[in-house]
């Protein structure tokens, strides 16, 4: 059987049936910026960082099924500019202070900022008021950094079977909540060993009693840009499930 391919920025990308454009690109070693995508979960399509021009129309590459002969543009000035603006939107929507953040160097939002050359937040900061939740004995929730990718929600529901997290509110007031009448994580059955504790791409869900174990400067994205980690984001072959996306 002939291998099916599509064209991405001049490169022929092979794909397997059922793969999305993004999965096929990652499998072929082409890095695609993303925040709400995770190889162990179904595509979500909310962060929009993986937006490409597919057959002349903009679309999220994580939710678009690959098809033979597609013409796909990703590395163009216009698309890179759109992605930079999306990152800037996320940076001003929350409260992101990288120098004091435990996740600095392990954070995908920060790493993508470097990758795409985001030199400033550009927009006015919203400075939302988002109190932290320190009620759980082992985990701190710092909602200031939440980018609403819903990975913790999906992990808790689909892997842990606990439904610890959910979304509340609408539009710019949308925010993460936990499954307790008190609204406190300490009143849920959440555990540090949950899958949901491992998937946050930014610094919302943090283990307590341990901080800066790896010095800043020696962390995952300090040494190499996120695009050099493309192997870690490849779709999982059925025979080879991979471990969680741990820092």
């Amino acid at each position, binding site marked *: 059987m002939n291998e099916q391919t599509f064209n991405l920025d001049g490169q022929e990308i092979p794909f397997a049936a059922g793969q999305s454009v993004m999965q096929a690109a990652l499998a072929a070693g082409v890095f695609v910026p993303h925040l709400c995508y995770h190889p162990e979960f179904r*595509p979500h399509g909310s962060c*929009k960082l993986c*937006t490409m021009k597919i057959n002349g129309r903009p679309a999220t590459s994580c*939710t678009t099924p690959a098809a033979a002969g597609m013409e796909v543009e990703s590395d163009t000035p216009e698309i890179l500019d*759109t992605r930079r603006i*999306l990152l800037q939107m996320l940076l001003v929507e929350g409260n992101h202070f990288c120098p004091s953040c435990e996740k600095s160097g392990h954070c995908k939002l920060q790493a993508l900022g470097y990758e795409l050359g985001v030199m400033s937040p550009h927009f006015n900061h919203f400075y939302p008021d988002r109190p932290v939740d320190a009620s759980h004995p082992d985990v701190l929730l710092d909602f200031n950094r939440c980018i609403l990718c819903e990975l913790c929600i999906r992990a808790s529901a689909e892997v842990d079977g606990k439904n610890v997290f959910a*979304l509340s509110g*609408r*539009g710019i007031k949308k925010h993460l*909540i936990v499954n307790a009448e008190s609204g406190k994580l300490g009143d849920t059955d959440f555990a540090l060993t949950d899958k949901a504790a491992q998937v946050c791409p930014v610094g919302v869900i943090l283990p307590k009693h341990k901080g800066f174990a790896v010095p800043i400067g020696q962390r995952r994205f300090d040494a190499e840009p996120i695009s050099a980690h493309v192997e870690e984001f490849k779709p999982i072959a059925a025979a080879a499930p991979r471990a969680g996306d741990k820092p």
Partner: protein
Amino acid sequence: MLTDILDRHRRDGTRLMQILREAQEALGWLSPATITAIASGIGWPRAKVEGTASFYSFFHTRPMGEYRVLWSDNITDRMLGNLDLMQAMCQKLWLEPGRVSEDGLVSVDTTSCTGMCDQGPAVLVNYRAIPRMTRERVELMVELIRARKPLADWPADWFVIEDNIRRADILLGNRMAPGEALGAALAAGADAMLAEIRTSQLRGRGGAGFATGLKWEACRQARGTAHYVICNADEGEPGTFKDRVLLTRQPDLVFEGMTIAAHIIGARRGYVYLRGEYRYLLESLESVLAARRAAGLLGADILGKGFDFDIEIHLGAGAYVCGEESALIESLEGKRGVPRNRPPYPVTHGFLNQPTVVNNVETFAAAALIAARGGDWYRSFGTPRSAGTKILSVSGDCARPGVYEYPFGVSVRQVLADCGAHDSQAVQISGPSGICIGPDEFDRRIAFEDIPTAGAFMIFDIRRDIFDVVRNFIHFFAHESCGFCTPCRVGTTLLKNLMDKIAAGHGTRYDIDEIYQLNRVLRTAAHCGLGHTAANPLVHTLEKFRPAYERRLKSMEFEPAFDLDAALSEARQMTGRDDAGAHLATDTENAR
């Protein structure tokens, strides 16, 4: 009480919206304990129930007073003075908008367009519609609220909603007896009926204009354990109110169209998703459904042909985005109204993941006419590429606002003449997400091939400031964004902030460039139509009504975003001062 509500809905989580509404009607608000009890009743995670309750404007998870007064805040309400009236009401009640009175009696706030644009300014009191507000009504209403008079004892004429049918054609002029179209459809059979729909060239009336025959055929061929018919009566596009009139005057025709669709696609169950603002229609629509069941036009063995189908009315709760069909389906399943990733489309994976047809109220009514009179007859109205008629909701600066049904192809100029509009400066067609045209385009026509529309037709005469119109629309989109995708969630708020900056006299050319930039990102990257079109009003009017912006802009290239005087507002509020000495003299003020 909660147990009764849960039992009545069979503790079925997909009925969560109705459970929440009824619980709130009974208990006044949705307390944390109520949410917990509902969640355990339907076997859902508590946080998921809270997620649904918090998504919709008409559900409140904190007490909002025994009386909640919501002023419709469409631009047409503004033009009729709603903000002055609201302020007068707040003063009389010693209230700030959005706050509950100290004694927990009342709260006053604004809400998105309630579909009473031809009879505004309108309010919802405890989600019951009251149009035609005046200063006298405000005064009396405040007295009634203070005296804690139940709504049932308020003047009955306040609750009368006018139909204002100014021009009727084949739809609004329909006089068929209930069952006539359905009888013809069942006699012809599903294949022949589908062929008639295709022949008619009927296209969806909700705005997108997808061919109805194609949609029904695709759904019919899709495999599933059940098929569903959904009537989209969410009519949330500001300035649109024609479905309200169709459901008031021609409910049988709408239900008949749904039943015919069900027969074609093989559905046994249908839903009308009625926007929460039209709560007042619920009882009358239920009684029409009951009459149809009694007449053998709905329920088991319809017209003795062995065809079973029934319709249920499902109320929304204040969320414009639910007019998008996949968000509507999510809402119908008890969830947050977030548009789904597509494909797959509802015709194959819709309600409960089964094949589903979703059509607008007007589309179903037209389908019923086609069943009775034939596709060729229907196609004889309108233009070669836009068959049939279109109902317009006309509001704004004209002598006779109301509902006008025209064959497709009518010119904007003709509509303006018929409704008595003079000195018109602009017409916003199909609502904020549609287009804004000026006098040089008034000869354009209402048709899919020229100006397609879901029905809104808002007129602004030369006295109006187009900037105010657009600012109102931009605030609307920011309020109604579901928040799923980054560009719409953050971008609509950035646009809103830019408009407020320009309105405050701090805008420059730089901000206009920012608007174009945000428009490009929204068009490229947003998840659904709401985001794609959110900057439309700005982009259209920046081209056509440039002076409305330029006279507000500072001449300089750049204006710092930080406003020192505005930063002192909190200090002013804390000290209760607003005199000249409490302000910094700024360039803006000097310029004024």
